[in-house]
């Protein structure tokens, strides 16, 4: 499984050229079991409808748009966070079964369960 990821991804359907594409990589954790990968992505400030998950051409993409920043009429005294969207792209060479991806969001943490494709599971071949 050659998962790698990047801040900006080229040649993707959703990223129009010429458009300023700003995103930052969220913190994440990967766990592996015999049958699945478990992906945890930290997306503080992202609501359920701000998340988009796509799996295409062996790449899993998670984007999270943060809810609008400050309430109207307020002024910033001190700022450390950013309203920039989150984007995580993980290539998996189709070792994940796209039909069996489950996602759950709770308190700004997204949990993804990625079932391994049959071809990616360990297999023992006997010699005749």
């Amino acid at each position, binding site marked *: 499984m050659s998962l790698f990821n990047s801040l900006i991804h080229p040649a993707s359907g959703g990223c129009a050229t010429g458009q300023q594409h700003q995103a930052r990589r969220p913190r994440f954790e990967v766990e592996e079991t015999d049958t699945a990968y478990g992906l945890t992505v930290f997306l503080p400030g992202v*609501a359920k409808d701000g998340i988009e998950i796509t799996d295409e051409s062996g790449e899993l993409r998670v984007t999270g748009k943060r809810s609008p920043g400050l309430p109207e009429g307020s002024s910033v005294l001190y700022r450390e966070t950013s309203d920039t969207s989150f984007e995580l792209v993980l290539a998996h060479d189709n070792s994940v079964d796209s039909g069996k991806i489950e996602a759950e969001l709770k308190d700004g943490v997204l949990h993804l369960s990625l079932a391994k494709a049959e071809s990616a599971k360990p297999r023992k071949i006997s010699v005749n």
Partner: protein
Amino acid sequence: MRYIHFTQPIARSVVPTADFGGRLAASGIDRQLDWLFGTAVAGFAGTARGGSFPVDVYGDKDSTYVRAELPGVTRDAISVEVVDGSLSIQASRKGKSAGGEDTVSFSREVSVPSEVQSDKISAVYENGILTITLPRAEEAKPRKINVSVN
């Protein structure tokens, strides 16, 4: 994080790298490629590390607000205290580690205006963001005073 052995390094890694390397050059964008094991370990260390967390402070005419990024913390374990103009936030997150579950603690102190109505402080935790409302004391609010001139 376990080390996972690659049985087919050529088929699994070199080919896609070359492919993206080609696209990279074409796009002219300088990108950093991270492999699962490198990034996963870095990401794990980053999230597992407790300590501080980012905060914003903003205000309107009635209140000062402190907003903290604390994704995935246990609601019941969030503690907010104001003492002498210093707001103290404490939280913890349950995580998985090699040996089972472990708890990661976070804490931060933020200076806030001292003229706060301590008994009316409220906090909301939503989407991993803790927002604390610190209502200003009446005396501290700007007040318009009419002066009659004879």
